[in-house]
């Protein structure tokens, strides 16, 4: 008995012998092709509004927070664990950061730092429950997530904290630098850091190793529990960042503002696992996954599809984008 989650399906199947050279290509770039087709179709359907620079910047801006939280989740998922607490924890920390500024009167940078630390601490608790108590991460993070909802309510009693949020804080998310929204810059920085950490550092290698085979990792001298805890902490800190940027964009802390990020982050992470690599979770894949979701949403809304279609399309995008690359993988030679 071993790891909790694995991307990909790959039950060691044998493919048909059809093995055109297009298939491995499809496997690798299937989701990206899906994104490209989507962009092409929307550009055709809504040629005025959709394919403009400002719309792309706006979509990117809207997607930024989702990418950050999904990037953090990717780290947890790479280490082989799920974190269902991220949405609740982002909501709570968005409330907390405004509370710390408005009620406690902490300066903006201190409040932000404090909240990032609390986010990492929540991750630490998750990690400890999973590794030291041995609770499956689904249950553990569902549990801590539920507790966090309670804490959030105890802190704010459900009322948004809207009065007296400093402008300096609000400007973090709403400002622009050289015409690029801050959110986008922050997102790019976070993704770059996550990528370097996961792909180019020893802790990142350890995270990948533990996710791949915890037993072999332990026998290779990797402190498995510590690595898992660190992964949860990274995930928690990213959730905190998303929560506080959301509070900054809204100009207030609201009890359940970020709850919805949980599902979209999962969708992004799993979509991403079908991108570029063989069903492996990775940071860049997640970015693509989140972009697919954001572009799909934007395009459909611009095209003005009715609610019913929006749901159907969104569901279909997930299946088709991943399906393209899975089919490519299944029927290409291994």
């Amino acid at each position, binding site marked *: 008995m071993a790891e909790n989650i694995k991307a990909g399906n790959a039950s060691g199947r044998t493919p048909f012998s059809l093995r055109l050279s297009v298939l491995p290509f499809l496997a690798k770039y299937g989701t990206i092709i899906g994104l490209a087709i989507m962009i092409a179709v929307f550009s055709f359907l809504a040629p005025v509004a959709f394919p403009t620079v400002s719309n792309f910047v706006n979509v990117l801006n809207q997607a930024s927070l989702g990418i950050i939280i999904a990037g953090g989740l990717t780290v947890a998922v790479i280490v082989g664990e799920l974190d269902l607490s991220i949405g609740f924890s982002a909501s709570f920390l968005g409330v907390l950061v405004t509370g710390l500024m408005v009620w406690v009167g902490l300066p903006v940078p201190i409040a932000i730092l404090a909240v990032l630390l609390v986010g990492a601490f929540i991750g630490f608790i998750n990690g400890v429950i999973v590794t030291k108590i041995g609770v499956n991460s689904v249950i553990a993070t569902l549990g801590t997530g539920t507790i966090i909802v309670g804490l959030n309510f105890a802190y704010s009693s*459900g009322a948004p*904290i809207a*009065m007296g949020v400093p402008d300096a804080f609000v400007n973090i998310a709403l400002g622009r630098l050289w015409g690029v929204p801050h959110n986008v810059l922050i997102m790019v920085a976070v993704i770059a850091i996550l990528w370097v950490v996961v792909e180019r550092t020893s802790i990142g290698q350890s995270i990948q190793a533990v996710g791949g085979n915890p037993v072999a990792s332990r026998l290779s001298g990797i402190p498995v529990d510590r690595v898992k805890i660190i992964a949860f902490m990274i995930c928690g800190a990213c959730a905190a960042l998303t929560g506080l940027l959301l509070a900054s*964009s809204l100009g207030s802390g609201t009890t359940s503002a970020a709850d919805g990020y949980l599902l979209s982050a999962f969708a992004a992470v799993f979509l991403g696992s079908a991108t570029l690599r063989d069903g492996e979770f990775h940071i860049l894949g997640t970015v693509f996954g989140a972009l697919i979701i954001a572009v799909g949403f934007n395009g459909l*809304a611009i095209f003005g599809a009715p609610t019913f279609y929006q749901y159907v399309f969104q569901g279909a995008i997930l299946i088709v984008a991943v399906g393209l690359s899975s089919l490519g993988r299944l029927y290409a030679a291994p």
Partner: protein
Amino acid sequence: AEDKLLLGLVSITATEDNNHRFIEAATKEAAKLGWEVSVIDAQGNADQANAAFQNLVQRKAGAIVDMVFPVTSLGAGIKAANDAKIPVGTWGGGEGAGIAAVNGSGGPMATPIIEKLVADLGGKGSVLLLTYHTGKVCRDREEVADAILAKSPDIKVTKNEVRIPGYFQDGAQYATAWLASHPDGSEPLAVWGCWDDPALGAISALRQQARTDVKVYGENGNAQAIEAIRKGFMTATAWQDSAQEGIVMVQTLAEAVKAGDAWKPKSVEVPAVVITKDTVEDFAKQHPEALGK
């Protein structure tokens, strides 16, 4: 303590501000009457709300209030309460068989706001309605909006459905998309949220794009929306005095308990207060509680 009357409040989500205000006021009012109050958070789950009703019947509650769940989704719960002759009030759940008292029907609140919206646009332009069909209150408000907007054929309506959770992001993303096809200066523009939160999401998108040409309208009048009106980001919202509604609900149910079998179902609505930039400061003086802690 045994013969203290027990008032059960079954909330769709006790952590939401409006619900919370209703609960607080109702609890205070109930305390005045010497009642005991028990709040159950059904966490958005109709089945749990039914279970909560049954649990309250189990505890021989004197009265139960359904907060926001439409009566159509509380068949089993209302039946259990009726069988035990416990009067049921609904706040935002609508009227129905076996319901003793009704208020908080949010539908009518949309009337002044949508009428203001039409007037502000001058009868033409485009409007984005952020809707939520699953919620009865939102659906009622949308019907009101449809009826009023139908009279202004020069206003083009786009509807987008937000999700719970996720209403902020959805509000922001729909607004972003809608703005892309409605550039600055093209025509009079407005966004309406069937409650404040999606509208606030839309405001964050507007501010990120530095668009000041779009009027934004909300409903409910939560602290955040009031603050947005003060700062000029939101044009108007209708403040639902849920605290007063909580008080009225308790009073009505107290009458119902007294009247026993002779009670006739009653609807006691508390009128909403329209807040705009002009009225916001006066409003804030009169209702400091509406602005949060």
